[in-house]
């Protein structure tokens, strides 16, 4: 009796359109796509780190299995994190707990905010970062 995919995504879209969080933004890649599959997001770099004031772009794909399964997420902006494939920008699910231990109630916004938290974990904090504005 859980909320169906479409209404769940409409709720997320509405929150995103109202500017859900200050640290991230997200919306449909194509505002006329009734299937609501492809999304674009941005994450503001974590403060007090090398990422501060940087803006990272990501692509999010919510296929028919969402939200039972996590979305596919890919950084288009270059970023050096343990959970990001350094050739493609794809999130390596096994290394990102939010997606690895996926819960149906987790939202796109949660994913983006948790990626932001990844930027300042001990394993990532000291990693050298590519030049600002470069892309995968």
């Amino acid at each position: 009796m859980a909320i169906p995919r479409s209404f769940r995504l409409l709720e997320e879209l509405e929150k995103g359109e109202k500017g859900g969080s200050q640290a991230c933004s997200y919306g449909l890649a194509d505002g006329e796509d009734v299937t609501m599959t492809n999304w674009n997001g941005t994450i503001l770099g974590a403060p007090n780190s090398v990422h501060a004031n940087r803006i990272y772009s990501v692509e999010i794909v919510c296929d028919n299995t969402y939200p039972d399964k996590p979305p596919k997420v890919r950084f288009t902006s270059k970023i050096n994190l343990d959970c990001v494939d350094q050739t493609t920008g794809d999130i390596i699910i096994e290394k990102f707990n939010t997606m690895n231990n996926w819960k149906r109630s987790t939202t796109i916004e949660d994913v983006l905010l948790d990626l932001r938290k990844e930027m300042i974990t001990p394993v990532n904090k000291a990693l050298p970062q590519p030049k600002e504005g470069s892309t995968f």
Partner: protein
Amino acid sequence: MSAIPRRIVKETKNLIKDPVPGIKTSIPDDDNLRYLTVEMEGPDNSPFAGGVFNLELYLPEEYPMEPPKIRFLTPLYHPNIDKLGRICLDVLKDHWSPAFQIRTVLLSIQQLLGTPNPDDPLLSDVADLCKNDNAKYCEVAKEWTKKYAIPSPKD
């Protein structure tokens, strides 16, 4: 998972047994009585006449304190319905009352097809056409109806 409230069981049963004329409701998944699909005939004397429009409806946990969630799956050209099928209608928002039923909502939506409200639009370009050149608006809406909502003859 909580049990389905009696009100929902009663309302959905009634809708299927005693449907609103021109509005057919089904429950595609017996395991989820909160999710309904709807086939709505366009009202006569409107550019949507002759068309059959598909909608999906979900009754949230909070129903009936909160309104049902509903959207069109068939594209239509209407100032209060956007490209994702979202509907701008007062009873679905701040004019919702727990005394209303799914039936009330479906009737209001069908009525909205015949009487668009371009002064409270979701799509301003469609609203402008609706207000300033109604004949042209009706023509485009009819075209869309023909293209997306008229069932093709079975072979």
